[in-house]
């Protein structure tokens, strides 16, 4: 297992350098002089221009710029926001819990519904449930996120008035936010109704963000299950007189999980992309909204740093997925 982990880590390193290279090039590949672009309509005085050139190191040779940048990144220095003057790193970690909370909820929503739905569809292949599920999965997968979000808002917030439209918790509640995870903080605050309010605020964003993963997971689970169900060892399990629940839910699903976990891992990238839209629509103060706001504010250090951090996040998730494979199917560890 340790060998397997190390070999996975070895593939992590080149990817990491690739990502730093991309985020490094980002600011330099923008059309025009980056400093002029950043300054935008306000313009920039010649003295300030020179100062910025030095600050960014644009007067240095390009390889030196990259090495300096890389050195900074490794020491955790991602530069400062133009707007708030706070380190990008600090801003990211202040907002990241909000995105993480939403993403986890969306993923849990997608997995909790998608896995059983896929299993039931595969077991009842060709029957009504299967066909209904597969058609809705197709719709769910191809639906534009913002349209779906607006539809839900109109129905549940507008007509029915069940759920709030924006934010993470009602303004009635105020408390220190020590972990940044609203559900947890609301629970710990001890204020009556705080947790309920936090949950209410989470429902619509979770559904919106979780819909595509839900559709993908349900479809992948179904097709993986169909493949596994025709395997010899399933016949053996049936020949042992095991119950259908045990055969489908344990013997088959455990094998079907490997391709499913792969797509769950791949979904994380999609999820972060979806988070950008979802957070913007629901005014959810996470890194998705932060990135969008920074782009509009031309806060390039933030965009650059955020990009790198998001990429690293996705890589860490993929690494975790690789390790999970090894745990689920010991045969993979050997390779």
């Amino acid at each position, binding site marked *: 297992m340790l060998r397997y982990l190390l070999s996975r880590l070895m593939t992590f390193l080149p990817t990491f350098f690739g990502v730093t290279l991309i985020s490094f090039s980002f600011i330099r590949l923008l059309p025009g002089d980056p400093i002029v672009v950043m300054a935008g309509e306000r313009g920039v005085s010649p003295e300030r221009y020179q100062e910025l050139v030095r600050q960014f190191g644009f007067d240095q040779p390009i390889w030196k710029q990259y090495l300096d940048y890389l050195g900074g990144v490794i020491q955790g220095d991602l530069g400062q926001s133009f707007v708030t003057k706070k380190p990008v790193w600090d801003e990211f970690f202040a907002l990241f819990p909000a995105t993480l909370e939403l993403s986890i909820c969306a993923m849990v929503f997608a997995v909790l519904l998608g896995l059983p739905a896929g299993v039931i569809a595969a077991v009842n292949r060709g029957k009504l449930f299967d066909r209904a599920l597969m058609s809705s999965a197709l719709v769910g997968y191809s639906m534009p996120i913002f349209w779906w979000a607006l539809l839900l808002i109109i129905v549940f917030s507008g007509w029915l008035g069940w759920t709030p439209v924006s934010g993470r918790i009602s303004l009635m509640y105020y408390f220190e936010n020590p972990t940044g995870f609203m559900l947890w903080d609301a629970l710990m605050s001890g204020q009556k109704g705080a947790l309920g309010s936090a949950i209410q605020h989470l429902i619509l964003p979770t559904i919106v963000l979780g819909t595509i993963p839900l559709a993908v997971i349900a479809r992948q689970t179904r097709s993986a299950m169909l493949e596994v169900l025709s*395997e*010899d*060892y399933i*016949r*053996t*399990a*049936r*020949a*042992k*007189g*095991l*119950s259908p629940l045990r055969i489908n839910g344990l*013997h088959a699903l*455990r*094998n079907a999980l490997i391709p499913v976990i792969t797509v769950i891992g791949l979904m994380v990238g999609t999820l972060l992309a979806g988070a950008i839209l979802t957070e913007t629509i629901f005014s959810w103060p996470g890194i998705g909204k932060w990135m969008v706001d920074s782009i509009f504010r031309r806060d390039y250090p933030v965009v650059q740093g955020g990009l790198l951090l998001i990429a690293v996040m996705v890589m860490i998730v993929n690494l975790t997925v690789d390790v999970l494979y090894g745990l*689920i*199917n*010991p*045969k993979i560890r*050997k390779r």
Partner: protein
Amino acid sequence: MALLEIRNLSVDFATSSGQFRAVDSVDVTVDKGDILAIVGESGSGKSVSMLAMMGLLPWTATVTADAMLFDGQDLRALSPRQRRRIIGKDMAMIFQEPISSLNPCFTVGFQIKEALRIHLGLDSRARHRRAVELFEMVGIPAPEERLKAYPHQLSGGMNQRVMIAMAIACNPKLLIADEPTTALDVTIQAQILDLLTGLQRDTGMALILITHDMGVVAETARRVQVQYAGQKVEEQPVIDLFERPHHPYTAALLAALPERATSKHLPTIPGVVPGQFDRPQGCLFSPRCQFADERCRTVAPLPQGPQAGLARCHYPLNLSAEAEA
């Protein structure tokens, strides 16, 4: 009373090109402690008839039979839940491909203990003790360590031993071994067959051995039933069958045995078993039979009497003088 009695079993598959009869009015009778071999070429419906009995066929299969009795119970009348209490316990089956027949995600110990828990309700200590004991019975060295192994860490022969241990875990009354050695090396084949016959002798269970190897039949079985294209074409005690085969197909199978070859070249049976689309009109074997005449090609033969080994043939071979009379 026989342990297993199946009369007139037929299995039809719904395929995209219509109904296909894979098993055609087959009778199977097995007494307690008996060893029956079922032989026949690939596609003769050996596996399908046994899977039908175990209730393991996919939903595309339609199973009909006049009688399906196991240990006094009518298998046709069982609910799925009742059937699950019998299969894996009193009636167990092992398969051709040992490695793919075991779940790659679980240790072999988990897979064997699972059966013990579900059918016998043993607690975890007792399960472990019994699993070790079973591994010793099937000749797996260092059972304590092997229980923790995954199927891919064991050889094909070892995996088949695990399968056998799993099948006999609950002391079945009948074990069905579907070509248990086909996928294994020749040396391992003999070991596994010895193991199976040894276990049969020690436990007194009945054994149905499916094979297409007449050599295996001679060494292990007491009775033989020959199947061809879904039909049972002959049934005899093993010694009689080898001495006096009545169906031309049986005779051809025996002639193909290396030790029986009379010339330098091994005789083979020309042609293949008819499938869904090329079923002949009369006797199913007639296109490949050296004795076939016009009657064989037009009229399907019914089984002869016991003196002719129940041969499905108009002109059974090797009839003794009094039977001829």
